[in-house]
């Protein structure tokens, strides 16, 4: 479990999750709305970073349990709920990687099996080749650039939100995005 939860933040007026967060702070049952809204996105983020279905489920579970525990302390310090949630997910993935290094079970990019076991197999096959190739090159990026790519393209976070997740300025995230896309373009279209 992540021991370094982000500092509590309160939702801002521009936070699209504001109503749901306030409702969940008043009544834990209302957290169901946020769970439904972000389960797939957190799972996808964890899976793309960990490359293993079961590790991704474990990290997703830890992320939501930690978020539910920390939610009453969520206070307004300029961050959105989803940036806060993905910071928890990032810390959880980092902890999972440390454990994996200890177990020496880091999967290679080629071993990526993107879909959950009960997903549609036809859809898996159709996109598998393109996905593997893109995943392979994304996986070869330095960690900070890979994080920016996944948070931007898989989870749809803005550069400002990614900065809050990664403890970087918005400008630094834009530079990372530019460098990452430049690297990927060179590898995908040499």
């Amino acid at each position: 479990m992540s021991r370094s939860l982000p500092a509590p933040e309160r939702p801002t007026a521009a936070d699209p999750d504001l109503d749901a967060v306030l409702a969940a702070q008043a009544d834990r049952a209302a957290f169901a709305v946020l769970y439904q809204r972000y389960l797939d996105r957190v799972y996808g983020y964890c899976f793309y970073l960990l490359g293993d279905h079961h590790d991704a489920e474990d990290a997703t579970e830890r992320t939501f349990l930690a978020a539910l525990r920390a939610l009453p302390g969520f206070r307004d310090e300029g961050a959105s709920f989803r940036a806060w949630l993905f910071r928890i997910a990032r810390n959880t993935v980092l902890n999972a990687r440390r454990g994996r290094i200890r177990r020496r079970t880091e999967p290679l990019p080629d071993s990526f099996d993107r879909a959950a076991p009960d997903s549609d197999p036809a859809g898996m096959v159709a996109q598998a080749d393109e996905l593997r190739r893109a995943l392979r090159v994304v996986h070869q990026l330095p960690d900070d650039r890979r994080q920016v790519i996944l948070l931007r393209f898989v989870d749809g976070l803005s550069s400002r939100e990614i900065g809050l997740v990664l403890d970087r300025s918005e400008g630094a995230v834009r530079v990372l995005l530019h460098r990452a896309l430049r690297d990927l373009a060179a590898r995908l279209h040499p």
Partner: protein
Amino acid sequence: MITRTRAERLDEAVDGILSGAAPAVEPELRPLVDTASLLRAALPPLPAGERFEARLASRLLRPGHLVWLAVLLGHAAGRGIGRAMRHPGRSLAAVGGVVTALAALVAVGFTRRAARRG
């Protein structure tokens, strides 16, 4: 006049791609924007498995709240239509499970009510 950096212009173009647009950019940024479009297509959101979704929901669930059940049933229904068309047998089994769960909830409700009256 404010001069935006290349990284800022690229970031705006990515915003456009993520919202489904085809942004116009200067030629030197075009390869990067094309790569961003490829990533958009090649890195789709990955849905969590339905069994995992239900299992985690039950861990997060506080007993006595049916909001979770309603939300999950709605979510499963939204996801399930496409799958039901492709896997009717599996869908019938899932529907059977949901009906059983609802019947159990109703039974629990009646039992509690009877206990209160008794």
